[in-house]
């Protein structure tokens, strides 16, 4: 008994010497990490400390620490508020709408691009397709306002063919499809690059073999291309599902107006509005934000596990 204790003590001190040695040996590496660590402590983790507010009744005079604890009151209020439930449902519906309607587009574009033989055309089109990704939704919404304006090109075409002009962005029925279409318009070109890279990596012998078996264009896409990029598709899909509570703040915030506001109101726009436009209740807003972060984080972990099970590799590690 005594000897084993002594052994443990010895190994402990050995371990201690070991990490001291490691620290001394790698002292310059710690120095290189220092700025990032300062950032993480002073900004990332310091901001997380403010989450305590979700369980308090914030009083600016008393600060975060001094404010009174009230437990889960904000969360109870949240779930009894019908508007919150409406916003939560909206967030999930819009998010899944995006997955169903916009997700496949990038894959289709990548496959179509791969079939394109003209190299110059390919390059030019790729530049055009990916360009809008690098603009903010502030700019893009401006371009879309002009394009869909009451007197703009789309409405003029509609009128020229005898249709009736519409206020596209002020129509509760049209606004959600417009969100999806403009999302596809702006982002799918860029997203297709990942799939295109995966397709380029496919062994060309597979295509030759398929050709020998008499496969045509569709046969090759169906039996070679798609199965080969299945892994990439699954990883992208699981990552997207993990982000289900991010329903596109930038886009909705910039394209919304008073007419359609409640139709496309999502958690992020709701938090912004209750905090910065009405009489603010910082604690309640923090609670809504925390709810979103926790669900979001849980989704990422779950999705990572799922991806590991399906593909043998996770997104996180």
């Amino acid at each position, binding site marked *: 008994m005594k000897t084993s204790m002594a052994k443990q003590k010895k190994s402990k001190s050995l371990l201690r010497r070991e990490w001291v040695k490691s620290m001394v040996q790698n002292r310059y590496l710690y120095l290189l990490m220092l700025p990032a660590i300062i950032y993480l402590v002073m900004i990332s983790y310091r901001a997380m400390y403010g989450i305590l507010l979700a369980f308090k009744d914030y009083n600016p005079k008393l600060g975060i620490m001094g404010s009174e604890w009230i437990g889960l009151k904000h969360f109870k209020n949240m779930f009894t508020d019908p508007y919150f439930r409406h916003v939560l449902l909206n967030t999930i519906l819009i998010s899944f709408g995006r997955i169903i309607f916009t997700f496949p587009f990038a894959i289709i574009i990548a496959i179509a691009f791969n079939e394109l033989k003209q190299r110059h055309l390919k390059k030019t089109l790729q530049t055009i397709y990916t360009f809008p990704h690098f603009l903010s939704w*502030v700019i893009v919404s*401006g371009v879309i306002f002009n394009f869909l304006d009451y007197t703009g090109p789309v409405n003029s075409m509609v009128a020229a063919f005898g249709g009736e002009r519409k206020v596209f962005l002020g129509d509760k029925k049209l606004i959600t499809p417009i969100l999806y279409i403009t999302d596809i318009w702006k982002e799918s070109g860029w997203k297709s690059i990942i799939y295109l890279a995966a397709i380029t990596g496919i062994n060309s012998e597979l295509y030759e073999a398929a050709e020998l078996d008499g496969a045509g264009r569709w046969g090759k896409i169906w039996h070679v291309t798609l199965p080969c990029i299945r892994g990439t598709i699954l990883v992208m899909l699981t990552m997207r599902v993990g982000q289900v509570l991010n329903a596109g703040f930038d886009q909705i915030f910039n394209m919304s107006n008073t007419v359609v506001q409640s139709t496309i109101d999502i958690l992020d726009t709701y938090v912004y509005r209750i905090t910065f436009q009405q009489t603010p209740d910082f604690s309640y807003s923090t609670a809504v934000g925390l709810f979103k972060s926790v669900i979001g984080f849980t989704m990422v972990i779950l999705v990572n596990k799922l991806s590991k099970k399906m593909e043998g590799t996770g997104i996180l590690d």
Partner: protein
Amino acid sequence: MKKKYTVGDIVLVTILVAWGLLIFYPFYNSILVSFMSQAEYMRKPFALWVSKPILVAYEEILSDSKFFYGYKSTLTIMLFRLPLAVLIECMMAYALSRKPFFMSKIINNMTVFTMYFGGGTIPTYLMIKSYGLMNSLASVVVIGLFSVYNMILIKNFFYGIPDSLEESAKLDGANDIRIFAQIYMPLAKPIIATISLFTAVAVWNEWYSAMLYISDSDKWPLQLVLREIISNATSTVKEDLSGEDLMLKETFALNVQMAAVVVTMLPIMLVYPFVQKYFMGGLTVGAVKG
């Protein structure tokens, strides 16, 4: 021998070109509208060119100091955030890509954690306030000074460099900082180019933090200036339409709005075709993994 095109090829090209035009035309139309007089706009909204271009909207925008200040703020933020962010990310990436050492795994996990979980809008807002950074450009510089995502991209690049380089330099008596600065940084030029471009675009498109933290409109970055012009002008569009002297007025709301859009978008538009390959390079560095 001539290449043979099947019907399928022709259909494919047609669809892809059509989609390309559908992306291109709205931008092109915005540029046209920024040069159009109201009279011409009413005549041909689906225009392919402007017959009598006017510069009234641009004169109006450039005579207003807002855009001047917008450019100034955006460039100031760029000047500080871009070099600092890239340097901090490279340093961290180098250290974390070395052989495991005491605490390195924990630090790595704590870093990656912040990519998936954060304080949220209000706690961050209160933090900026408590640091006394409200209404100062420093707030926008600081938020987003360290991107975990970019750091991981650099780290993956460093993993691809053979360890023997580090080992032989160590034998020559070089310390980690020298190896990082004199061997690894020069080798990392391609990934540094990519990360710098990603960061530059992020700064150029910055508006959200500025909207939250900066109340003084003289300090607003470009995008926020544009945002205000767009949202203010939308409310005046309908008045313009109902007016009797509609045609007589030279400029109109959309004209000025689109000029503002063009002024904000132009730098990216001009640079993008030339740097496109670096952006795409960033994606092929490898999947983002902790």
